[in-house]
């Protein structure tokens, strides 16, 4: 077991930070896997995000889960383990293993502890959509392996595959597109989010959605830079479609969780737009937006979970004028709603602004459409806040209770982080500088 840290400084490619060569994980004949880690600042940020969300999840479920609490904790712990693995490994095969493996605890999470009968449908939808996507990825993996003999990231950079690489890129992108989720394959997300328990939604929205884009950043772009530039317009079209269509769909929803779930889809499509904007501004914006979205969506799902725990309904029409008896809740909900809307002062604003600036450099039409998407986002966010929190008190609820101490401390860190990153974005942007610079070198 040797630890070697190497900086790769070629003229064409630079792997950020260092890579640790752990045990020879598996070696079967010619097929060797070593558990190599590539730890750059993007992985660092995502691991931090995971690390802050998981304890908050565990905090929120202490008295909420009515049965099999220990198995629930075990499932969350498994999810965390697989997530951290996914953000660290630099071997495509290992990444694929964890990419598929994380479906299992989520399958159980949604199916066993979900709240209504539709959970089975949602669980299977989630599982099979993502599983089929990762089958495409497996196909791409096998093609790469048959041609190149290894799937480690270091060996895969600077590789020339000829015209086959375009097809392989598509295979990979299908897998990641289902995970993001992008337009035609996004249907699993509202189902999964709505039927999942609070913690399930938080983890799904907070971290799992980022996996697809993280895989694009970590694997797809370094290995296939020209194909990425070739396909970028296509992906941008699907992303824009996603943003506009899904934002419009969000406006008609009556389930609290569904609104936030669809909003997650829209934001993730924004991030995809940023990643495929092919310049440093939009790239840093996309990473920033991912962090921000992780915090904000998690907070929103926590808040909706509190509502559901009290009143056992997620129907929007039952809630009105909650500010009168739950002012603390309203304030926090307001902060998160403004963040969801990318209001200046919150971290989402920095992200989306950077993305828009970046995309304007590439393609003005798309940036116009994306800006219209922001307006739609404002529509559904403000409307949601307005009709649930403000106005005369709803006649449907009799006993109100504001946030308890535990609930408050579940969302408070997220509020603080949202505002801090919104007002002092350089905290993150300084960390990202090197990585973004490295990333740009891929697009010669």
């Amino acid at each position, binding site marked *: 077991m040797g630890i070697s840290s190497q900086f790769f400084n070629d003229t064409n490619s630079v792997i950020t930070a260092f890579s640790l060569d752990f045990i020879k994980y598996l070696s079967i004949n010619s097929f060797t896997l070593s558990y190599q880690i590539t730890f750059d600042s993007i992985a660092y940020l995502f691991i931090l995000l995971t690390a802050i969300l998981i304890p908050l999840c565990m905090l929120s479920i202490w008295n909420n889960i009515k049965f099999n609490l220990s198995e629930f904790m075990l499932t969350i712990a498994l999810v965390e383990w697989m997530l951290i693995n996914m953000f660290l490994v630099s071997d495509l095969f290992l990444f694929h*293993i*964890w990419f598929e493996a994380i479906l299992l605890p989520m399958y159980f999470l949604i199916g066993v502890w979900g709240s209504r009968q539709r959970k089975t449908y949602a669980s299977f939808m989630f599982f099979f959509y993502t599983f089929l996507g990762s089958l495409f990825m497996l196909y791409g993996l096998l093609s790469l392996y048959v041609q190149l003999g290894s799937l480690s990231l270091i060996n895969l950079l600077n590789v020339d595959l000829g015209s086959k690489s375009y097809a392989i890129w598509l295979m990979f992108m299908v897998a990641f597109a289902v995970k993001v989720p992008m337009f035609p394959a996004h249907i699993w997300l509202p189902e999964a989010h709505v039927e999942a328990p609070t913690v399930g939604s938080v983890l799904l929205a907070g971290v799992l959605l980022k996996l697809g884009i993280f895989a694009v950043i970590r694997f797809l772009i370094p290995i296939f830079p020209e194909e990425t530039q070739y396909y970028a317009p296509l992906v941008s079209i699907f992303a824009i479609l996603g943003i506009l269509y899904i934002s419009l769909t969000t406006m008609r929803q009556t389930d609290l969780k569904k609104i936030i779930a669809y909003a997650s889809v829209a934001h993730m499509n924004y991030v995809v737009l940023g990643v495929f904007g092919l310049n440093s501004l939009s790239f840093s914006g996309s990473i920033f937006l991912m962090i921000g979205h992780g915090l904000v969506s998690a907070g929103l799902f926590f808040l909706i979970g509190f509502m559901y725990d009290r009143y056992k309904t997620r129907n929007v029409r039952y809630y009105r004028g909650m500010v009168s008896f739950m002012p603390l809740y309203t304030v926090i909900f307001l902060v998160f709603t403004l963040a969801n809307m990318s209001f200046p002062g919150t971290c989402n604003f920095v992200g989306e602004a950077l993305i828009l600036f970046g995309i304007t450099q590439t393609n003005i039409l798309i940036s116009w459409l994306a800006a219209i998407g922001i307006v739609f986002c404002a529509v559904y966010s403000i409307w949601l806040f307005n009709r649930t929190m403000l106005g005369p008190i709803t006649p449907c609820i009799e006993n109100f209770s504001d946030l308890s101490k535990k609930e408050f401390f579940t969302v408070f860190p997220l509020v603080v982080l949202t505002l801090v990153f919104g007002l002092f974005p350089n905290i993150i942007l300084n960390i990202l500088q090197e990585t973004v610079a490295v990333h740009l070198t891929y697009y010669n």
Partner: protein
Amino acid sequence: MFSLFCYFFLLIELPNNFFIFNDFIAMDNISFVYISITTITSFIVYLVFFSNEKTTKDNDISLELNFIRNTIVFVLLLICITNELSLLFFLLEVYSLSAYVLVAQRGKTSIFSSEAGIKYFIIGTVFSLFMIYAISIIYSIFGTTKIFDLYLLVTYNKGFLKILFETDWAIQILIAFVLLLIGIFFKIASAPFHFWSPDVYEASPTTTMMFLSILPKVSLFLVLIKFYPIYILLNLDILFYLSAVCSILVGSLLGLYQKRIKRLLAYSSIANTGFIILGFVGFSVNSLSFATFYLLVYLLTNIAFFSLILSTRIQPTQVTVKNLYNLANLFFIHKSRFAVFAFLLFSSAGLPPFIGFLNKFLVLFSAAGYFFNFILFLALISAPLSVFYYIRILKLMSFNKYDYFLFLTQISLLSSIVISFSFVSLIIMFLWSGHIVSFFNLLFL
């Protein structure tokens, strides 16, 4: 069981690479490995059999049936080391006759059982006829029925084969070898000759199903491996490939509709057989090792499945679980059974990070060199299909949607030993898979 130990110790004493009894028996490294696999597997199967509480009740250990079971094991061990086609046929016939009896074992009390026995008997006889016809043609053309001699004839005398093909005997040779293959494919329940297995397996007692589905596979795969070079040279390896792909598709598609555990296991074993055959389609050291590895994992998984099913009895009437809904809500009733089931099901489905994924991936990878796009496409299609029916069982067990609660008896000590052994060995195999496969590598030429 004692006899099994004797066989095994005897085998360790014997020198490698011998031909005895006028070349009827051949022993080389890989036969040794396969015969030891068979021995150990039969031992474990016997353990499971004796751990079954109902065995004493239903008179399963009566003298005749015990003798028949021992015959089956002995015959399968001999099949591993035989070199002679007529001996192979003889042993297969003994095996088949014993199997027919075992299937119809409950025939006095259950017409279902005797129906399955007759079905198996008639169909099995037809395929044995194919085999004997094939063997007689081979003898009449080549003058020998030793597998090794056939191999030598076909490889070293390519000219001989060319002459044959230019004469009228070409068709006869092809027919002979195809029929031989069909006979063997029938025994291991590979598509398109699989149609007997769900019915027969469902109607036979579960212990018999264990004997019939787990044990012959090892020996007959060794026979197939021995035959394979001949088939390559005759350009008939496409048959293996087609059968493999058909098995995978059939096993995945038809398993979707099953509501009984034994039929589901039958279809899943068809699919797994397809994967194993796929494993040695590309005949290289790598792929054979991967195929054997898959075989091992499949055997252990099945043994664990059977132990679980046999030890799961509904309390008041001591009936075994037969339908899938009998397993409902297992997560809330008995966590450790559920954990093992989950592990086995996810592994069979081929989901990472369990060992089944490594299995399937390695087999697919080794077959990728052979005929890349089409087969991968088919295998990739069949993967989610089979995943569905495995995951559906887990849904039944854990999603708390059904009002059906089972009162289960305790698992007997022996069953728990077997189940834990299989479980642990599967995990260990995952960690040591490199060593195991390279060990196999050393043995395959």
